[in-house]
């Protein structure tokens, strides 16, 4: 299996993206911003279609649009946390724009939009190629480094924004930077697992980690490890079972981790909450 170049490329890019998504996902869940992450990953679809309609490299549209939208979300809310409704309305509109680009692309190039659309929506980690997967890995490493560098102040700003602000932590700027990181991650992950499935890597491993531990650094490590395991197991499963697309396999494994963690966390609930079971 490892002798095949496309598997090695997939593992290289997939591992880097998984660790980045796991780390960022820990904060996404902690800040209850999964919807923003979801929106950023869905608009990647519009970005891909816009660059297709304009005849540019897919990645230009992807990164431009996700970063722009991340900044817009940051501007919409207090402390760079926009509320669900604003996110939803803006994001529905961007998807509406995506349909428009799809129409334009259809009439200009004809025919192949179904394949492009499906590729942008669901990605194909096996079709990355050596060059793009190396670029994806380098960008993901950059994301990991920045996330780790801001982890401490970001944690402070998330858990107690008022005190953090009083202590001179730039809460708003950190929130905006964080959303931009998630946006870049969404553009990254779109190439590997697709715009619609990126959420699986962002929410499921981090959600599982939050169920299992309250310690932030252990949680971050666990979240990244679970995301990495999801990608590896997913790629292996998809390699063994021909009918199983890699994107589906990765997200289903991540979902299974979440269910296991929820069951484990449920049993560990203190007695005082036992009546809720």
């Amino acid at each position, binding site marked *: 299996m490892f002798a095949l170049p496309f598997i090695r490329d997939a593992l290289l890019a997939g591992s880097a993206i998984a660790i980045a998504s796991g780390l960022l996902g820990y904060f996404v869940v902690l800040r209850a911003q999964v919807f923003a992450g979801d929106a950023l990953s869905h608009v990647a679809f519009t970005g891909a279609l816009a660059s297709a309609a304009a005849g540019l490299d897919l990645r230009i549209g992807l990164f431009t649009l996700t970063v722009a939208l991340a900044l817009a979300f940051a501007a919409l809310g207090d402390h760079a946390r926009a509320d669900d*409704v604003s996110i939803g309305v803006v994001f529905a509109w961007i998807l509406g724009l995506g*349909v428009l680009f799809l129409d334009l692309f259809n009439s200009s190039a004809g025919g192949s939009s179904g394949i492009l659309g499906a590729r942008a929506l669901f990605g194909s980690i096996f079709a990355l190629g050596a060059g793009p997967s190396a670029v994806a890995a380098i960008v993901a490493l950059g994301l990991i480094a920045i996330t780790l560098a801001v982890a401490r102040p970001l944690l402070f700003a998330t858990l107690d924004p008022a005190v953090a602000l009083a202590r001179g932590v730039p809460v708003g700027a950190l929130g905006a930077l964080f959303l931009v990181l998630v946006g870049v991650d969404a553009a990254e992950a779109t190439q590997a697992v697709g715009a619609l499935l990126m959420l699986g890597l962002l929410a499921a491993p981090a959600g599982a980690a939050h169920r299992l531990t309250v310690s932030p650094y252990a949680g971050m490590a666990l979240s990244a490890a679970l995301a990495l395991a999801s990608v590896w197991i997913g790629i292996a499963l998809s390699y063994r079972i021909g009918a199983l697309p890699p994107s589906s396999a990765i997200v289903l494994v991540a979902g299974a981790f979440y269910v296991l963690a929820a069951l484990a966390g449920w049993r560990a609930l203190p007695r005082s909450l036992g009546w809720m079971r």
Partner: protein
Amino acid sequence: MNPTFSANPVSDLNQLFQYPFMVHALQAGTIVALVGALIGWFVVVRRESFVCHTLSVMSFPGASGAALAGLPLASGYFAFAVAGALAIAAGSRAGARRSLSHESAVVGTVGAVALALGFLFLSLYGGVLESVETLLFGSAVGISAGQVRTLALVGALAAIALAAIARPLLYASVDEQAARADGVPVRALAVAFLVLLALAVAAIAQIVGVLLTFALLVAPAATAQQLTARIGASLAIAVALALIEVWAALALTYFTNVALGFYVTTIALGFYALAHAARKLRHS
């Protein structure tokens, strides 16, 4: 058929009603706007717009799973939407208090798993990929008279069910602790509302597509709640905005031949931005 826009509004309107497919689209759109705005109003009060979005995404595995199993598509839509609602209800409350971060993780995971299953079903089915876009963005043209009747039935049932639980649901949504202390079955109401939302969203998504459901359910209600705090007034405004959104978008689509989704979402965003700006002005 060649849609031609003239300066004469009467002949334009006549043109709109001339074709059965446009009449069906207008009927379906009107039902969706009426029911969607009412349910969406509660979605906004309960801050469950992410849940609403995720439940509409359930249509994707629903449709592709039903196609794979050879069942009617509608059965897949409803089955997956209700299953998703129950999964979210089961996972989102671990303790007595509402935990936003757990809830958003559960909803996101359910959505991602649903999409992964949908993609798996689709590749097993080996169907045509173009249908993905129709599924996501709907098609105003392909609505039959039978679909309009089904939609009307589901819409009426959902509206009646919502009316029956509206008062306690509002209490539980606005002040959960007090409602619980008053003996309101908060948890049961939350689950009932999620299932109701799932059924309505499944019916709506079959007509307007997965991604537009949100623009028709949540955006008008959110706009109305920006404008007034009074319950009756904001419900009425939400319904009116949703109707304007649908009718205007259908007419524009007919005359310009650009995707319906673009117009629906653009008008929704326009109204919301105006209401937001108006509110900012009034408070400054």
